[in-house]
C-alpha cells in the first residue's frame, strides 16, 4: 500500500526495478560472448526462483521445508519426460508446477497438523522418498543413468536452444514470477501469511484460517520450486537423481539464510552470492559447502536478517531513516 508508508516507496520500487531489470539486461551485453557465463547466469536465475518460493514458506510464514529439492525434481522430471516424449514444453511446465503444488498440498496436510520439527521431518522424508524413486524406477526415470537429450523449447517460433536465448526465457520467467510473488505478498494473502508468522493465535481470531493459509504458502513455495525444476531440465539438457538429493534442500536453506530470510531481496542476494562466489574463486565445490555453512551459522547467531539486512544497517546508521520495504 504505497499511500500508507511514509518513506516514498514508489521511488524505491522504481529504483529496485531499475536495478533488477538493468542487471538482467546488462548480463548478456557484458557476458553474451561467453556461452558458459550465460549458462551460469541462467542457472542462478533458476535458483532464485526456487529460493523465492522457499522464502515464502519459511521466511514469510515461518514453516520449515526440507523437501524443496524434491519439488524441484518433480518439476524437472515432468518437463524432461514430457518433452522427451514429444509434448510441448509449454504444456509440460505448467503441469510440472501443478504436480509440485499438489505434492505440497498433500505433504503439508498431515505435517501442518503438528509442530515444526515434524514438518521438517516429514518434508525430509519426502525428499528421501522422491530421491529413491528417481534413482530406482529405471523404467520411468532412467535411474542413475538419468535422462539425456532434453530439448530446449521454442517460443512462438523463436528457437531458444542457444544459451543466450534460453537465458532470456528464464529471465522472463524470473520477472513474471517476481511480479507474482510481490502481488501475492502485497495482497490480503500476504498479510495473512505475515499475520500467522507474527501471532498465529490472534490471526485465527481475526478470521484467518491457519490450515488454509499455511497450506497455501507451503504449496505455492513448492510450485515455485516446480517451475524452477522445469526450467532446469532443458537448461542442463540432462538430468539425473543426483541433481535433487536431500542435501540440495539444505543448500537452498543456506542460500536463503545468507541472503536474508523473510526479506524479499533475500532470495536474490542469497542465490547470487552462494552460486557466484565459487565461480570466481576456483576450488573444490565442497570447500564452499564448508565455508557457506560456517557463514550461515555466523549469520544465524549474529545477523538474523542476512545480507539483505545490510541495507537496513546502511539506512539506519548512515542515512538515519527507516529502510524502505519491498513488501509490507
Amino acid at each position: 500500500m504505497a499511500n500508507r508508508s511514509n518513506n516514498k516507496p514508489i521511488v524505491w520500487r522504481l529504483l529496485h526495478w531499475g536495478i533488477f531489470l538493468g542487471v538482467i539486461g546488462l548480463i548478456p551485453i557484458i557476458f553474451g560472448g561467453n556461452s558458459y557465463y550465460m549458462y551460469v547466469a541462467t542457472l542462478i536465475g533458476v535458483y532464485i526462483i526456487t529460493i523465492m518460493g522457499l522464502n515464502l514458506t519459511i521466511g514469510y510464514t515461518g514453516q520449515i521445508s526440507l523437501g524443496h529439492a524434491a519439488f524441484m525434481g518433480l518439476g524437472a522430471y515432468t518437463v524432461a519426460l514430457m518433452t522427451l516424449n514429444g509434448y510441448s514444453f509449454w504444456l509440460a511446465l505448467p503441469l510440472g508446477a501443478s504436480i509440485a503444488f499438489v505434492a505440497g498440498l498433500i505433504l503439508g496436510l498431515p505435517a501442518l497438523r503438528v509442530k515444526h520439527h515434524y514438518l521438517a521431518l516429514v518434508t525430509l522424508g519426502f525428499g528421501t522418498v522422491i530421491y529413491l524413486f528417481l534413482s530406482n524406477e529405471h523404467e520411468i526415470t532412467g535411474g542413475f543413468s538419468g535422462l539425456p537429450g532434453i530439448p530446449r523449447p521454442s517460443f512462438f517460433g523463436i528457437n531458444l536452444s542457444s544459451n543466450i536465448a534460453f537465458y532470456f526465457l528464464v529471465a522472463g520467467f524470473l520477472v513474471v514470477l517476481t511480479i507474482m510473488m510481490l502481488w501475492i505478498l502485497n495482497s490480503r494473502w500476504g498479510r495473512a501469511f505475515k499475520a500467522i508468522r507474527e501471532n498465529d493465535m490472534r490471526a485465527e481470531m481475526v478470521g484467518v484460517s491457519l490450515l488454509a493459509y499455511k497450506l497455501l504458502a507451503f504449496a505455492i513455495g513448492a510450485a515455485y520450486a516446480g517451475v524452477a525444476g522445469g526450467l532446469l531440465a532443458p537448461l542442463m539438457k540432462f538430468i539425473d537423481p543426483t541433481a535433487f538429493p536431500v542435501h540440495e534442500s539444505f543448500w537452498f536453506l543456506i542460500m536463503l539464510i545468507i541472503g536474508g530470510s523473510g526479506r524479499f531481496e533475500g532470495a536474490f542476494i542469497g542465490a547470487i552470492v552462494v552460486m557466484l562466489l565459487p565461480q570466481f574463486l576456483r576450488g573444490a565445490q565442497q570447500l564452499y559447502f564448508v565455508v557457506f555453512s560456517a557463514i550461515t551459522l555466523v549469520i544465524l547467531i549474529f545477523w538474523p536478517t542476512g545480507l539483505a539486512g545490510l541495507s537496513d544497517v546502511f539506512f539506519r546508521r548512515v542515512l538515519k531513516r527507516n529502510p524502505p520495504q519491498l513488501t509490507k
Partner: protein
Amino acid sequence: MFIQLVVSGISIGAIYALVAIGFTLLWQASRTVNFAQGDFLTVSAVLMFILVCLGVPFILALLVTVGISAVLLGYVVKRGIIQPLIDRSHTTIIVATIALSFLASNSISTFWSAQCKPFPQIFGMTPYRFGSIILSRQHVWTIVIAIALILAINLFIQRTKPGKAMQAVAQNREAAKILGINISSVTTMVFVMNAVIVVFAAMLIAPVYMVRFDMGAQLGLKAFYSATIGGFNQIRGALLGGFLVGVIETFTSAYISTEYRELVVLVVLIAVILIRKEGLLGTEER
C-alpha cells in the same frame, strides 16, 4: 533365518535407539531438534578411525574420541551455537543444526577423504553358534553393549543428583529455576552426554557401515524417525522406536525391497504422526 533377521534387526535397532535417546535428551533439556546428530556420529567414527590407523590401541582411541567429542560436539556446540539461539524460534535451531550438519560432513570430505574406508572388526569375525542358529558376533555384541549403555544412562538419570536435575529441567523449567538449578549448565551437561553416547553408537555402527563422510546422515534420520515414532519426550519411547525401526527395516529389505525400506518406515512414521502425534509412548506437551 527368521531368528537371524530378528537379531540383526534388533542389533541395528539398538544403535538407532541409542542415537535416538541422545536425541530425546537434547529435546527434553533444551527443545533442540538436532539435525546434525548423524554427522556427530560420522565425526566420532572418523576420529576413532584416524586414531586406530595411527596405531593407537582401540580402547585408548575410543577414550580419546570420547574426550574430544565431549568437548567439541558437546560443550563447544552447546556454548557456541545452541546457547545464542536458544530463545529464538524452533525453526532457527533446526536451520542452525542443519548448517552444522552440512559443515561437519563437508569438512570431513574436503579435509580428510571422500572415500569409503573399512573400519576394523573389533568384535572378531567368527560367528556364535547356538544349535542351528548362527549369530554374527557384531550383532550380539552390539545388542549387549547398547543395552548396557542404555541401562547406564537410565540409571544415571533416575538415581544421581545431576540426573534428577535433568528430569526437573525437562518436566518444568520454571520450577527447576526456582529451586536453584542452573538450566544452562544442565543443558550443557546433556549435550556432553549426547556427544558421548554418539561416540559409542559410532563404534558399534562403523564396522558395519564403513567410515565415510556421509555414513551418519541416514542414521541420524533413522534415529529421528525412531524418536518420533516412539515418543519424543520419553527414553523408553526412543527405545521402542529404535527397535521398531530396526526390525521393520530389516524385514522390509529381506522380504520386500532393499531400495524402499525407507518408504515403509516413513509410512509408519506418517501413520504415527496422524494417529498419535506425540508418539507411541510419548506424553502430550504444553
